[in-house]
């Protein structure tokens, strides 16, 4: 085992392991002399990390990419720069290296390292700035807007850009799949970052019975947005699953699952075993009012603030009834009622879960046109360039929510990002079908090139 670990360390951390005389000579090569390889890549990555931390510490703020039109011109000129540099200066050591595998690998490693930090360290919510917090200043608490990620992004993007141009010039049909996936990823990353500053997003409340409005107040930041159309909530609809019943241990407040280990969802005449007891549903009303303050009886109704209620019987091991009565999960208007089994356990009904919720909305467009539509989770609607989403509702009031929470988003760069995504998907199909990136012929060419390099 020790030998495996040792060899692993040797393999992993000392890339230039001595193998033969030629590689020994390579090892002697000074940094940044001769053909650049992995070593240079890791040194550059290390410097970028350091630079990212220092710049972050000095500026202390999340970075924002410039807005339109500057972001567009930066994106285009950066891409053109890569193409022109490759076309005319590709024999230059740096350009050659940037379009090589070692640069691709080391930039991917750097990108992976910063992403890993992002995936492990809890991040602050977007927009939140912590003052006098060292970890926030250097970017570790807002990595997605930090210089650290920005610089590793840039390295990754640059290497990817040069690789894309290298694959494209001279173009060979058999490299089409490779080109698609590289170009697709380049477009996604470039447009995703550059376009992020042009994207607008706000969450706002549409109240029941409120007049149509085009000025909306952001739910989280109190900022105001003006939409190019007025919106009115016609009706908010929600359908719920039947509630579940669980057994609760009083001492620990632990919820116990039934014997079958599947959630016990209430249905009339259903029964289920929990530990030593069996609970049977005699009557179930999805929406009901208690007829007295002691909850001794319920009547079915669909009126405002009605709530689920079930009449149950609890049996012991010998199949004799030990408890019976009504139980309910309670809501904003009524308190809950459990069924006590003994001093240690009671049965409780959980709040029903939402199955589907939707807002019927009327939009007043410019020019006196109106449009009515329904918004649901997973089915947004585009109006005048703004994409509207059903996000949430007054969850405390549940079924009887007095408002609907809507998200409106506008992302002019989306078509660009999507075109990149579709190129990438096409590339993925190619990878699946063709497999290897380089055919045998190319491998031989590469070998010859390597030999030539060595001879030089």
């Amino acid at each position: 085992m020790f030998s495996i670990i040792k060899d692993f360390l040797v393999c992993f951390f000392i890339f230039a392991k001595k193998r033969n005389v030629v590689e020994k000579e390579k090892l002697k090569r000074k940094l940044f002399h001769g053909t650049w390889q992995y070593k240079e890549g890791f040194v550059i990555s290390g410097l970028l990390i350091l630079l990212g931390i220092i710049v972050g510490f000095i500026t202390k703020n999340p970075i924002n990419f410039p807005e339109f039109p500057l972001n567009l011109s930066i994106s285009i000129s950066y891409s053109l720069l890569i193409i022109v540099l490759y076309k005319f200066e590709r024999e230059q050591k740096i350009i050659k290296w940037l379009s090589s595998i070692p640069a691709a690998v080391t930039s991917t490693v750097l990108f992976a390292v910063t992403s890993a930090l992002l995936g492990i360290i809890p991040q602050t919510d977007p927009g939140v700035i912590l003052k006098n917090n060292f970890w926030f200043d250097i970017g570790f608490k807002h990595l997605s807007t930090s210089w650290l990620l920005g610089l590793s992004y840039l390295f990754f993007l640059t290497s990817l850009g040069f690789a894309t141009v290298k694959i494209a010039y001279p173009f060979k049909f058999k490299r089409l799949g490779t080109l698609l996936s590289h170009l697709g990823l380049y477009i996604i990353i470039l447009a995703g970052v550059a376009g992020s500053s042009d994207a607008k997003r706000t969450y706002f409340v549409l109240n029941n019975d409120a007049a149509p409005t085009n000025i909306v107040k952001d739910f989280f930041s109190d900022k105001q947005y003006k939409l190019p159309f007025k919106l009115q909530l016609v009706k908010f609809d929600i359908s719920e699953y039947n509630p579940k019943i669980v057994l609760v241990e009083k001492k620990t407040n632990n919820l116990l699952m039934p014997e079958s280990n599947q959630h016990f969802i209430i249905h009339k005449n259903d029964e289920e075993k929990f530990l030593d007891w069996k609970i049977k549903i005699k009557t179930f009303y999805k929406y009901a009012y208690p007829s007295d303050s002691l909850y001794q009886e319920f009547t079915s109704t669909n009126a405002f603030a009605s709530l689920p209620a079930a009449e149950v019987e609890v049996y012991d091991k010998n199949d004799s009834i030990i408890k019976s009565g009504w139980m309910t999960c309670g809501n904003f208007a009524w308190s809950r009622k459990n069924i006590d089994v003994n001093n240690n356990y009671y049965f409780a009904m959980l709040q029903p879960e939402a199955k589907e919720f939707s807002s019927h909305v009327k939009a007043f467009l410019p020019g006196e046109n109106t449009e009515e539509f329904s918004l649901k989770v997973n089915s947004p609607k585009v109006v005048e360039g703004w994409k509207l989403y059903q996000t949430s509702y007054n969850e405390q009031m549940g079924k009887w929510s007095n408002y609907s929470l809507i998200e409106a988003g506008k992302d002019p760069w989306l078509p660009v990002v999507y075109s990149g995504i579709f190129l990438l998907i096409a590339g993925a199909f190619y990878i699946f079908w063709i497999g290897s990136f380089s055919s045998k012929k190319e491998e031989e060419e590469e070998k010859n090139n390597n030999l030539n390099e060595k001879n030089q």
Partner: protein
Amino acid sequence: MNWTNFPLAAYSASALLILAFGLLFFPIKRKLKVTLANLLTITALIIFIIFITGLWIHLERPPLRTKGETRLWYSVFLILLGIITFNRWKYFWFLAFTNLMALVFIFVNLAHPETYNKTLMPALQSYWFVPHVIVYILSYAVLGVSWLVSIKGLIKSYPNLNVFGKIISIIFYPIFFIIDILSDEKNEDNHKILKMADDIVYIGFAFLTLGITFGALWAKEAWGNYWTWDPKETWALLTLLVYLIYIHIRTHHKNRTKLHLWILSISFVFLLSAWFGVNYMPSAKNSVHTYSQQE
């Protein structure tokens, strides 16, 4: 056609899939094996497609709403992708694997046909749900196989194993044995092992890419943003990057086989982190991918 017809369709399709599965281990001529396995599996697929079409017409909506219906699609897509991949790559183990997975989902459906009332939160009710999950299941499974191959290569690379190494190789031996039966290649040296690993990684990587892009497209429809650096997203990206590193490093120093085997075997750790490790990380407290109940 409705769910009461399901046992008929399920048992006949299962019988065909089991036959195809058994056949793959049977020492008959390769060509005959390929033809028969294809015939059996494709017939099972057709039975399922007929059942789903009937169910669709009966329900007057696409059967995509309940978990039982979702599992139905799992079985169908697994069989379909199994057939496509098998005919492209001719790996017997792959068809054996997808058939087995499809059987698992069929039998879960047979055991719990009453799955109409299981709760499914609104965010998951989307036509992206099945393709997104299916390609991820497949990519994880395929990359899992590539991990096994890398472990096999590593064990062969270190002939003087100590006690721990020997225990590991004994634990894995039955799996290597099955892979050896199902694959034509008698993997003698690291180069051949890595060639096989490469092919497998390409398949898995393609599915991984599809999974993450489908996820992005779905996220745009459900949450209004295709990328939010959600911990699960971040780890999915990391997994992608790590396999990207493997693929690129393979095209360069072809002779560093031990290093490549190590990278491939370690990549799987990232995959596992993305799959379920992420739930235990400090960053996961606000993840949209944690679907556990809040009560």
